[in-house]
């Protein structure tokens, strides 16, 4: 059990998520928010844990891709319940750009990372799924962020990540870059050794620790 999220609550939530009962999920999350759950717990111990499980069920052919997309769409909708709290945080003037790479359609992890920056007082600019490198470079030029985060969910897109890292390093050699996402479960976590100023963070928990360290 993690704070307010008991195993029972988690199971009810997961079932509702898998059967597409959006209303039930909204009710449950609103209930937790009313009981003043920390947003960190909500993201890590409910949203992330459930979506990891949904991803695993899909990989093992226990659920269809349609169910996986439905669960993702519901979770994306649930994030908007939290936004009024996240965006009300005091700002510290630091800026982060978070993006998914080209041909990566899974954006939930990246978006949750962007929200973590907001929660910790950063201004985060989130570029959604399937972002072409040119668009990313243009935004980096415009916003001049203190940090870039790149999210990768599908291992097959590792090449795209390397390509975009090369381009970023070419134009912004000093910019600190964070990489992370579910794709790294299958390998490639040595990516940080191949490029300067790149850090690999396996989970949202590591990301939180990284941001807090300053």
């Amino acid at each position, binding site marked *: 059990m993690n704070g307010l999220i008991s195993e029972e609550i988690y199971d009810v939530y997961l079932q509702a998520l898998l059967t597409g009962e959006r209303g039930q999920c909204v009710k449950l999350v609103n209930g937790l928010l009313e009981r003043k759950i920390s947003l960190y717990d909500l993201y890590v111990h409910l949203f992330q844990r459930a979506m990891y499980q949904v991803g695993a069920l899909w990989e093992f052919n226990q659920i269809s891709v349609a169910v996986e997309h439905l669960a993702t769409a519901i979770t994306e909708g649930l994030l908007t319940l939290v936004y009024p709290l996240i965006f*009300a945080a005091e700002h510290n003037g630091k800026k982060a750009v978070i993006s998914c790479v080209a041909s990566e359609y899974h954006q939930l992890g990246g978006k949750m990372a962007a929200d973590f920056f907001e929660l910790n007082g950063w201004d985060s600019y989130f570029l959604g799924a399937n972002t072409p490198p040119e668009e990313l470079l243009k935004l980096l030029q415009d916003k001049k962020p203190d940090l870039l985060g790149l999210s990768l969910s599908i291992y097959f897109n590792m090449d795209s990540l390397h390509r975009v890292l090369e381009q970023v390093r070419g134009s912004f050699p000093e910019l600190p870059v964070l990489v992370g996402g579910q794709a790294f479960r299958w390998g490639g976590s040595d990516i940080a050794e191949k490029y300067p100023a790149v850090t690999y963070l396996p989970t949202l928990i590591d990301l939180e620790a990284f941001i807090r360290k300053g």
Partner: protein
Amino acid sequence: MERLDIGEDLTRYLFQDAAILFLILDPAGRIIDANNYTRRLTGDDLIGKALPDVILDFTGTVNLPGLLQKNDKLQLLNVRTRSGLPQTFYFHFIESGENILAFGEINSLEIETLRKNLLSANNELSNLSRELQKTNAELVKLNELKNQFLGMAAHDLRNPIGVILTYSDFLLEEAGDVLKEEHAQFLAIIRKSSEFMLSLLNDLLDVAKIESGRLDLDLEPADLVALIRNNVTLNQSLADKKSIRIIFRNDMPLPTILMDRTKIEQVLNNLISNAIKFSPLGTTVEVNILKSANHLTVSVRDDGQGIPESERKKLFQPFSRTSVKSTGGEKSTGLGLAIVRKIVMGHGGKIGVDSEVGRGSTFYFTLPLTPSNHE
């Protein structure tokens, strides 16, 4: 080459297991048999139905002879499913002896493209919603800053204006007889302008207070009828100047209700003085009170010019001005109705206006009966 005889196995597969739609139609297009997959999708009662009861093209009809002529091309058609949502399949129609065979399949390549497009659209929508929430949070912060500024500015301006008002009052009263007539007129203008400025500042302070969520209501049981009578009397001298008659009749005994007496007085004063302000000379302003199951409704009717429909919506917003002019040159701050609306809403009531250009307007507000007053 001799063909293998797989007819029976193929038929069994088509009817029992295949994940495609398979239907057999009679020459008139009536369904005489269908496989398990079709039955699961559409419901078991499809035997005997006509084709258009189950399968339709995008215009909502189906032309079987036409479909048979194009038997070399796949046709995109909609199937009525048991869930009520139509599902799209690629159909192939073949004449087999007297009967017609219909096969419906999904084009997985196309579905994949659709899926990706749908996913992108959903992603884009959810990112826009994130941006919107972010901008919204920034606007809320900016609005708070604006209210703080408004409150501070209004507060700090009130003192010097109070001084101007007091001294011009003093001079008019004490030195009236030694001043030249022209100078006395100038002083009167100074006094009138500073009076208006003070009322504007007071309204601004009210708005700042209310908008920052500090509408503190001091609720206690009070007699609304007595409050109205009191307010009618207070406004009588204003009405007399324009020979306007204020009528308030109430014979019904009404219960006391919970309210902030001072704030509701402010509401009544605003609506009644507004009615006088916008009424032509010699007309009537009528105040009424009605009791219904859950609330009391107070209405104030005037014989003024009426408010065009396009302007009624913005009437209750701060600094909104309408094309309607006061009949005696009275000024208004443009904040009164916005404040009144917030006060009424703070009490759990509603406020509104009915109006007809050339016939006059009726402003009304409701206040909820306290639970013990309910019938």
